[in-house]
């Protein structure tokens, strides 16, 4: 555990290597700073003993001047130390954050299937923040406080060992109190933060679902649930208050007691002439000077483990990501005929169940293939494998005879366009969303793609047309609109192969009909693999594959499959049955 912690610490500090000089300078400055700060009580002592007590005005002024001078030096040191250190630390955190984000992007889809978005956000914000705090602030405080305490103790021992022992005892007690405080209060604060998130989630869902709440007339129930979580947050905050009111104030009592003990013994010593008034003042000043560094030390030590844990979480992401996107021998493809071959492909997601079980088929260049089947039969997975979002567990997928895994991903993306069932629309303008794969597309090209995808009119009716920002901070689009924007996006890329996952779900009947008719023209000359439960798409397919439980159960032309009176015929009949029962 300890060695693991050390290793992580070393690795974390390794990120500072780019700014080694700045970092070293900062550390030296911090030590100088603790020196100038701990010398001030000594100067006060001399000002009193040599100036005030001896009624020597010159000395008073001299030491007063020296104190200000020490203050100024201290200020300069402190400013530059902070500045250099923050620059070095920020550079380190910046690189750590970039490394983490790049690693996130390089992760394969399995990683995203089992990781929540919120967790990743928390990695690059909260964890990175914690590390920033450590590298730029806490580390400096650690060095500063330790040196300050050590130098101060040295001076105290030179003045009066007896009083210095009191100081040491005080320091130890206060330090351990602060460490306990930090250990006790942190988990509560974590719970407070978590509960705040719960409460925010509770109100988000009740506000986002307000129409449902009102329609069900369950306002009271919702208010009750919120009230419960609200109370829990209150309770946790009170817990935190209990701990911090005790541990936060007790060090002051200890230091107060120590100072009175010093006054008591110091007073006796002054009478016995073994201590001067200035020395006693210096002692009292030291106690005041050390109060805040002691608190900081307690918290830094109490927090160390958490900082390393945060760093560890980032390192885990970085280490688990594949080093590069492509194998070294990957080949570049500039164009393709568009032939796809599945050769005994097996696949399972991380959950383990086999989704595809020995699927083999060939799509000829320019052919339109429709894959259909019940939900869970593995249809969408076929598309995801062709798009190379996932790799087969067993078997091969070939593009123009070349294994997909051997082709550079950049090449694949030029050749293949994939329209998922729930396409993602970025928080940018519609124009940018459509021209994703071809950023230099002219507005005419974009409009043309949008027209074909039957979304041009809807875009025109938006407040700022193609420049309207959509997504989280902009206008929200319906499922059908998103799908059509994604189709326009794919068309604009003008790929050789196009993969459409249920392109007509979320469309009303009229639009569906029009889009299906147009798809026929759009897809001329391209290889297309379309997944759908809507058999209206059978009209444009050259061939149909029926999947069931991860296997191909039927394959052929629409008419042939109907004539066979098998699974396809059944699917078709249930679908028509719904329609026919009306006639």
């Amino acid at each position, binding site marked *: 555990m300890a060695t693991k912690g050390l290793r992580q610490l070393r690795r974390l500090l390794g990120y500072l290597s780019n700014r080694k000089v700045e970092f070293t300078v900062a550390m030296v400055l911090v030590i100088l700073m603790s020196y100038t700060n701990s010398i001030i009580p000594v100067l006060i002592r001399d*000002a*009193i003993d040599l*100036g*005030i007590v001896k009624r020597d005005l010159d*000395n008073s*002024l001299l030491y*007063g001047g020296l104190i*200000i001078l020490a*203050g100024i030096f201290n*200020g300069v040191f*402190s*400013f530059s130390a*902070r*500045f250099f250190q*923050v620059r070095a630390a*920020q*550079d380190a*955190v910046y690189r750590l954050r970039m490394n983490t984000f790049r690693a*996130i*992007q390089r992760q394969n889809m399995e990683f*995203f299937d089992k990781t929540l*978005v919120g967790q990743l956000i928390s990695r*690059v914000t909260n964890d990175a923040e914690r590390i920033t705090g450590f590298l730029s602030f806490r580390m400096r405080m650690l060095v500063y406080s330790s040196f300050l305490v050590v130098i101060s103790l040295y001076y105290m021992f030179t003045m009066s060992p007896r009083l210095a022992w009191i100081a040491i005892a005080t320091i130890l007690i206060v330090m351990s109190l602060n460490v306990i405080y930090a250990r006790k209060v942190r988990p509560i604060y974590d719970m407070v933060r978590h509960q705040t998130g719960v409460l*925010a989630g509770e109100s*988000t869902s009740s*506000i986002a679902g307000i129409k449902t709440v*009102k329609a*069900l007339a*369950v306002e009271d129930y919702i*208010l009750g649930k919120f009230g419960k979580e*609200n109370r829990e947050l*209150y309770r946790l905050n009170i817990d935190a208050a209990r701990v*911090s*009111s005790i541990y936060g*104030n*007790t060090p*002051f*009592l200890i230091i*107060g007691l120590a100072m009175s003990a010093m006054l008591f013994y110091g007073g006796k010593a002054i009478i016995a002439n073994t201590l001067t*008034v200035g020395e006693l*003042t210096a002692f009292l*000043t030291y106690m005041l000077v050390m109060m805040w560094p002691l608190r900081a030390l307690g918290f830094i030590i109490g927090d160390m483990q958490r900082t390393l844990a945060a760093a560890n979480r980032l390192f885990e992401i970085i280490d688990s990501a594949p080093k590069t996107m492509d194998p070294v021998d990957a080949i570049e493809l500039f164009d393709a005929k568009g032939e796809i071959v599945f050769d005994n492909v097996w696949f399972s997601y991380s959950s383990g169940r086999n989704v595809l079980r020995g699927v083999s088929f060939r799509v000829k260049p320019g052919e339109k293939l429709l894959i259909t089947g019940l*939900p869970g039969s593995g249809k969408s997975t076929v598309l995801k494998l062709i*798009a190379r979002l996932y790799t087969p567990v067993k078997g091969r997928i070939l593009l123009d005879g070349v294994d997909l895994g051997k082709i550079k991903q*950049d090449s694949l993306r030029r050749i*293949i366009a994939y329209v998922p069932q729930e396409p*993602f629309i970025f928080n940018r303008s519609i124009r940018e969303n459509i021209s994703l*794969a071809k950023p230099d597309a002219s507005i005419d090209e974009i409009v043309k793609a949008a027209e074909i995808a039957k979304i041009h009119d809807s875009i025109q009716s938006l407040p700022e047309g193609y420049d309207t920002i959509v997504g*989280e901070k902009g206008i929200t689009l319906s499922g059908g609109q998103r799908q059509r924007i994604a189709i326009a996006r794919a068309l604009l890329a003008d790929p050789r192969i196009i993969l459409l996952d249920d392109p007509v779900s*979320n*469309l*009303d*009947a009229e639009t569906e009909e029009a889009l299906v008719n147009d798809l026929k023209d759009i897809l001329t000359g391209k290889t297309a693999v379309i997944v759908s*439960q809507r*058999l*209206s798409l059978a009209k444009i397919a050259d061939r149909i594959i029926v999947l069931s439980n991860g296997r191909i159960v039927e394959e052929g032309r629409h008419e042939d499959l109907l004539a066979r009176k098998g699974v396809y015929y059944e699917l*078709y009949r249930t679908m*028509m049955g*719904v329609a026919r029962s*009306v006639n």
Partner: protein
Amino acid sequence: MIASLYLIALVLQWLFTTVQTYYVEKFGQSVLEELRARIHKKIITANIDFFKDKKTGDLVSRIINDTGMVNDVLVSGLLGGIGSTLSLVGIIGAMLYLDVKLTLVVLLSVPVMVFVAKHFGGKIRTAYRQTRREIARISSVVEEGVSGIETVKAFGQERKVEEEFEEASKGAVRAYIKVAFYMGLFWPLMNISSLLSIVLVLAYGGYLAYMGAISVGTVVAFIQYTQRFRGPINEVVSMYDSLQSALAALERIYEVIDDPNMEVFDGIRVEKLEGHVRFENVWFWYEEGKPVLRNINIDIPPGTTIALVGKTGAGKTTMANLIMRFYDPKRGRILYDGLIGTGINKESLRSRISYVPQETYLFPGSVMENIKIAKPGSTDEEVVNVCRQLGIHEFIERLPKGYDTPAGEAGKLLSVGEKQLISIARAMLKNPDIVILDEALSSVDPKTESLVQHAILKLMEGRTSIIIAHRLTITRHADRIIVIDNGKIIEEGGFKDLLTRRGKFHELYSSQMTVKPMVER
């Protein structure tokens, strides 16, 4: 003697601050809890109009962040502010008691400290806020990059997203360095101004001591006092600044609490309805001058089913909104069992009506909890029974964890149509007298489609039902079909009637049905 008194005083002071810290914090937290509850209640009980120009995130931020801001000032204001002011007064009082002239000279450094604290304190806070904004930007880039990872990968957008991240990340670095710059100036300047007071004591006190005007002890005491200045002054000054932001936060809170768009729950309560609904000369508009419904007259006898048909924007959903009393007619009236709608208590009315919206909103929690929400306090058996009746029990059991499947997971697995099954179960659990169903538009596979149809018919059995029909196959089951266009009823009658009449309905119907023959080539 004096020593033991001093010790007692010390312990008493500790006891007092500990108790004070605890109770002030406790008081602040209870005010905070109350404030959060009040603003949340206000939002939940506001009428639908309230929400039309509001964003969820903004409202949530008012409930969580703004109240927190107010509390920070309340607690730290009571604790820190008052405490600091008191100690300042105490310190100055003690100094004045010892020596007036020396005190006045020492106080010369106070304006310097106040200036430093105010000037740099404000700058530091602004710079801090900037770092919060940059961090928020980083989160949204990650959120987008990760939620859209399929699209990012499929379209090779890694570099673009990475650039955005890099930019946000650099912004954060710049903001932090700015904070460091001001902090770097702030603390040493505070320190120097506090040392300045020591030097003033040494110089002037030294002079007075030299002249024999005061004792050495007084000078030493002054040196001790001046060192306790810095903390309280900094605290009081920063209080002033956070007071500003607290006032702004309070304003945002009261903006919501004082909003006049309140749902009014008065009128007579209805326990049970026969389900007779009648529109009498109903007009409605969301915006003045743009009527959405024009003089609608419909009579829906108890237990009958009507289907509302028409293009998007014809006014169908508005009619449902009026029946639910999300809005009230601008002209004309709606009668329920002969009672005027506006005279009935909304909550009691809504608990007699089940509304099945097009898009089902799933609350966090399990599928079971999501159905139960329609009737808080209902048992698992009740829910299972209802689902059995509707014929969707097996469907739910097939979900990964059956009824215990978390809504988030279910939301990802289920299509819009399948999610509507949950809405239908909710509706059924309420055992309503009137059912309003906004049929889901998007397609489901044939099996689910028949499941949904079956469930809908089961739900409508023996109840007054209003269906907003998008796909016209369902209209066959309606006793009467009402075709709306541009806010007016243009056709009305039975399914066969309307088809033989070869009017608008026939036109709509045949355009939808053409998809099928195409498949048959």
